[in-house]
């Protein structure tokens, strides 16, 4: 019996999904243990197995040894980075460039904010060492490496107490020889030191971004290594026979050995699972283009699935620090169930980005919160059932919610508390709609081609409002919306990305040179997956070339096939893509390419989502489980309430209505129609009157 297991470790909860040999999903939720995330995972694994075995019955129990694949997110890396609990880390760089990490890009991201404080450098100046050497952008050596100087630095490193060092030399992406030699020399003096080379971690142009990425990587290698060593040891004691797998930010899975070398690629693994899960579900039900919206307590993560694939970016930021590595594109905005409503000094109503978080949380959670939140607003409007929240396990404070909305929003705005509560929802969804547009149009995508997939704890509560405020065509709330991230991890492919900067005019491109670089990237990427037990013939390789017009700064990533570089074809494809994304192409400027990129993918077995039978005679006709007064369109109205367990595929209902399950609430507005599909996903569409 072979089973697969995944764990999505959030700041508050850990979601686990077990997929058994029959293709059934078993979903569990347990508290996370931020002091040592390992404990929460181990606890969750045991609870999940026990619950699954109870369902499956005697004689068919799954033991740890039956789990052939266990994948989980490396939240530990992100957490350490955000809290700046990093081991002592040093930097070795070219003479003259010691302060690149502290100078950053010199911008003030908050243009009117005189109180802005630049983040403290990831590595303090006293641990940033310079060495004599210089390489030019062509890869030509201008100044030979001062090996004696490197030896002196190695001694200083040894004395500094650093456990890891990032080596980032100017233009090392064009010629890594000096970085490699520096590593050899450091290792002679400091054999236990973690040494990360910028040419290996992020072999791309731009010294600050590459240094930032390499520094984060070096600082987090000791963290992920210790975590994975401890976790896999204890899982082995529980009977797990296979290696651990780790979700990467790029939406692919990698073995724990690669994760130990490149933890920077796992930083945003949690949110990426939701997008991958969304992509998988979208493929299953035949949707090509989806905006995923994971709305939690403090923030909302927005991602994209275009043409059936999760959209990735090659650079992103964590806490102001750039990371050069392919990542699932996530736009995180400060809008969640706990977002606070407030009045600006001009009397305008704003919601967020401040949040009441999990503690004290919304007033209605009875944990000491005293600011009006989106969840309080939903309760004021009776969108939430105070007696059925978390299936009745949590008793919501209706009086508290009414009080705080009246006192802090409705009173000052001279409106009723319901108008104020509805106003907060309208404002928060307007901001979310703005963010959805932003992520779509920045990629040249048309929102009207997209379906909104709303999940996370709070996604369903505002999905109807969001559909109305945005330009997407329809919305979908998946069944089991809380577990989509963990499901996503279960279905991700193995993936390894490699890239190299090579700036050449397209017209005079040397196909042999390009082929050589691609061959090197291919060996690197394919090798990583083969090392991990995949068969070479099962590895799929995709190649891309970043192209731009000479003089332009930004480039577009154009897929190419694996034959010799066809320059004419590449130029045609680039012009087509430029036309699509930016609305024009030009023959005025010659083209050049900037980076070569290669992605190796290894496919994994896919589970089937559980399907449900259509409504039978025994089920009786579709009817609401209950009714209550819910506020829609300016007044309280008698509103049908459906429980998800009572719904059947094919059921179709006109809003206003509310659909509830123990972990989520879906609110459908008037003139919107909800349809239940075979997986019990809820599809919502606007019906023009």
């Amino acid at each position, binding site marked *: 019996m072979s089973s697969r297991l995944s764990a999505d470790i959030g700041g508050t909860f850990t979601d686990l999904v077990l997929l058994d040999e029959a293709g059934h999903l078993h979903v569990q939720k347990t508290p996370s243990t931020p002091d040592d995330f390992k404990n929460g995972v181990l606890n969750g694994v045991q609870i999940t197995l026990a619950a699954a075995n109870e369902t499956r019955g005697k004689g068919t129990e799954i033991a740890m040894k039956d789990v052939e694949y266990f994948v989980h997110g490396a939240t530990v890396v992100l957490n350490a980075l955000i809290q700046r609990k990093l081991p002592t880390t040093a930097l070795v760089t070219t003479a003259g460039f010691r302060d690149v990490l*502290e100078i950053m890009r010199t911008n003030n991201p908050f243009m009117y904010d005189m109180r802005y404080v630049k983040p403290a450098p990831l590595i303090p100046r006293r641990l940033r060492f310079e060495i004599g050497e210089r390489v030019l952008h062509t890869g030509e050596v201008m100044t030979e490496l001062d090996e004696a100087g490197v030896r002196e630095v190695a001694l200083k490193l040894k004395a500094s107490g650093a456990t890891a060092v990032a080596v980032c030399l100017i233009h090392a992406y064009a010629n890594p020889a000096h970085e490699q030699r520096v590593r050899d020399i450091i290792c002679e003096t400091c054999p236990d030191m973690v040494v990360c080379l910028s040419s290996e971690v992020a072999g791309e142009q731009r010294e600050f971004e590459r240094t930032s990425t390499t520094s984060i990587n070096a600082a987090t290698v000791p963290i992920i290594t210790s975590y994975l060593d401890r976790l896999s040891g204890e899982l082995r004691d529980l009977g797990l026979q296979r290696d651990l797998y780790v979700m990467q930010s790029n939406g692919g899975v990698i073995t724990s050995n690669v994760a130990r070398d490149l933890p920077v690629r796992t930083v945003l693994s949690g949110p990426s699972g939701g997008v991958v899960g969304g992509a998988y579900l979208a493929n299953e039900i035949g949707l090509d283009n989806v905006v995923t919206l994971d709305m939690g307590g403090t923030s909302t993560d927005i991602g994209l699935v275009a043409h059936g694939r999760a959209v990735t970016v090659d650079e992103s930021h964590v806490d102001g620090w750039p990371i050069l590595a392919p990542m699932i594109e996530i736009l995180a905005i400060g809008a969640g169930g706990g977002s606070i409503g407030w009045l600006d000094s001009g009397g305008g109503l704003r919601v967020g980005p401040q949040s009441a978080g999990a503690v004290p949380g919304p007033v209605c959670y009875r944990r000491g919160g005293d600011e009006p939140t989106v969840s309080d607003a939903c309760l004021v409007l009776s969108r939430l059932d105070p007696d059925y929240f978390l299936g009745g396990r949590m008793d919501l404070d209706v009086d508290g919610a009414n009080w705080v909305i009246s006192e802090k929003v409705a009173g000052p705005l001279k409106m009723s508390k319901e108008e104020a509560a509805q106003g907060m929802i309208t404002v928060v969804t307007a901001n979310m709609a703005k963010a959805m547009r932003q992520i779509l149009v920045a990629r040249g995508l048309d929102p009207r081609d997209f379906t909104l997939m709303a999940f996370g704890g709070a996604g369903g509560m505002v999905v109807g409002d969001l559909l109305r405020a945005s330009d997407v065509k329809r919305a979908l709330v998946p069944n089991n919306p809380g577990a989509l991230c963990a499901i996503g991890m279960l279905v991700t492919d193995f993936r390894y990305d490699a890239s190299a900067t090579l700036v050449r005019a397209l017209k005079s491109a040397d196909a042999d040179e390009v082929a050589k670089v691609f061959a090197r990237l291919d060996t690197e990427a394919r090798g990583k997956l083969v090392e991990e037990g995949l068969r070479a013939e099962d590895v799929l390789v995709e190649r891309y070339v970043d192209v731009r017009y000479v003089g332009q700064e930004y480039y577009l990533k154009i897929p190419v096939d694996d034959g010799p570089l066809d320059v004419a074809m590449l130029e045609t494809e680039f012009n087509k893509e430029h036309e699509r994304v930016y609305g024009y192409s030009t023959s005025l400027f010659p083209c050049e390419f900037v980076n070569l990129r290669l992605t190796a993918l290894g496919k994994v077995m896919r589970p089937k989502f559980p399907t449900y039978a259509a409504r039978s005679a025994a089920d009786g006709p579709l009817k609401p489980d209950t009714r209550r007064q819910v506020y829609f369109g300016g007044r309280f109205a008698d509103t049908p309430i459906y429980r998800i367990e009572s719904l059947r595929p094919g059921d179709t209902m006109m809003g206003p209505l509310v659909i509830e399950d123990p972990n989520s609430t879906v609110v459908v507005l008037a003139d919107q129609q909800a349809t239940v599909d075979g997986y019990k996903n809820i599809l919502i569409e606007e019906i023009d009157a």
Partner: protein
Amino acid sequence: MSNVAPMRAANTTEQVQIDPITLEVVRAGLVSIVHEMSITMDRTSYSTIIREVHDYSCVLFDGQGRLIAQAEGIPIFNGSMNFVIDAVLARFPVAEMQPGDIFISNDPYTGGGTHKNDINIVMPIFWEGEVVMLSASKAHHLDIGGKDPGSWSSDARNTFQEGLSIPPMKLATRGVINEAITEILFANMRVPQLSRGDFAAQIAAGKTAELRAHAWLKKNGIALFKSAVNELINHGERITRAAIEKIPDGVYKASGFADSDGVTDDPIRIAVTVTVKGGDIHVDFTGSDKQREGAAGNCHWVNTVSMTREFIMFLTDIALGGNEGSYKPIHVIAPKGSVFRPSYPAPVTTGMGDMGTRLIELLFQALADVLPQEVIAGTFGNFSCLTLAGFDEETGVEFVHFSPYAGGWGGRSHADGNSAMVSLGSGDNFNVPCEVMETKFPGLVAKQYRLIERSAGAGRHRGGYGIAYDYLMTLPGEFTVALDRDKYPPYGLFGGRNGRPSGLVVNPGSDQERVYARASGVKVPAGTVISHRTAGGGGYGNPAERDPQLVLDDVLDGLITIEDAASDYGVSIDPAALTIDRPATERLRSAMT
């Protein structure tokens, strides 16, 4: 949005009730349009200055030319855009505009421009046969002619030496570009190929605005738009008034000197009288010197007003820029013919940065005693631009590398000044990475790019450190530089010390070493090292009150010496153990007070 039922309006005459919720929804929608203009600019531009430095801004006006939305960008640009629209509309009334028309200007004297490199593109947005909005973008073009490459000459003596003047003109009629204009324009630029691409980007941004505005109007209705605009503007005004009301009523004065006008080194006297009464603020620059011969000494009226607005915006709680109403309570006065309101044909290009930054700092100084939490100590000053130009014989291409530079900011009530950040008016401007610079400019190699040790002014919260950017010219070429704070260093506040002044050092440490602050078109042979060094920020508060641990940190980081710690901060550090000698520190500090 049927849950906000009144928002669906059928016809254009209907008045729509605007509550604070609808207001926020409309605001988000309009900002989103401007944001998409910026995305288009960002992604379709050609030059380093736009793509890497983000030296541009996009805004939206209503059909009457009232500013209604701005997004991220450059603060000084945002406060100036209504001068552009006023100049365009004065010459080309809205009633005569046709769909597809495009208007252009750059001239501060006739076109409402900031300086000549900043070219404005204005495009009307029609709805049901009427101009309901106008989009505008302002972008810095690398070169606009004039006496020196980059058109950024602090020693220009008149406006003609600063490049081609473009009064408000109709660049396109019904979508057809008047190529006579573009041909003259490109013929006057040293690097026209990049500007061609950047023009396309500006026009693409305007088209984006039109497309999005149409979609928005289709969904929400023109009646809602027209009603909401008035309330949006009122809302902007209320926010500004709320900020001004926090300043106690009174009259506040400050005066000082700017370093040079670029032609003569006589200090320039600058003075301001600020009168706060309720929600209104009057800012009067009477008492400042008469306009100067050189560009570095003149702040054009457009920039004087814009920078003053900018300063007030620092005090408000707006995150994404203001609108027409935000500026209503701000009243600016300067005598005609003075350095803050020079008369034609005075040169004004670099003065926008030189004098404009001084202007903001003068206001900080005037209000320091009543706004000690909000003000900051002296910064490194202007944009500190450097142009490096040369000719690559191998490829036959002339290169021009123009960039603003970062420096040290002043200490504040709650924190040290930031090191290495762009100047006060520059906002979200980025540097050009060294690796990108070398790839694009064949004659330049970065020798070093680092913080300048010992450059920050001491204080309870010290200033930020300036930066040194050393270039090696591998081809013969020339440089033009416009630094600031070389004579009058960034000032300390409330007992904080001044920061270290700036300077451009040619061939540092050699027997040909020469130091400049403002110079134009200086020819240099291959092999020359040019070290551009910006000033450190001023300190805030008494240095003897600084946490000794933070002083030790700066020593350990090599940013100050053990001797500095003792003399500037009264902190005694054991040179062997590198720890704080507490008793000795107490002795030093009690001797300081």
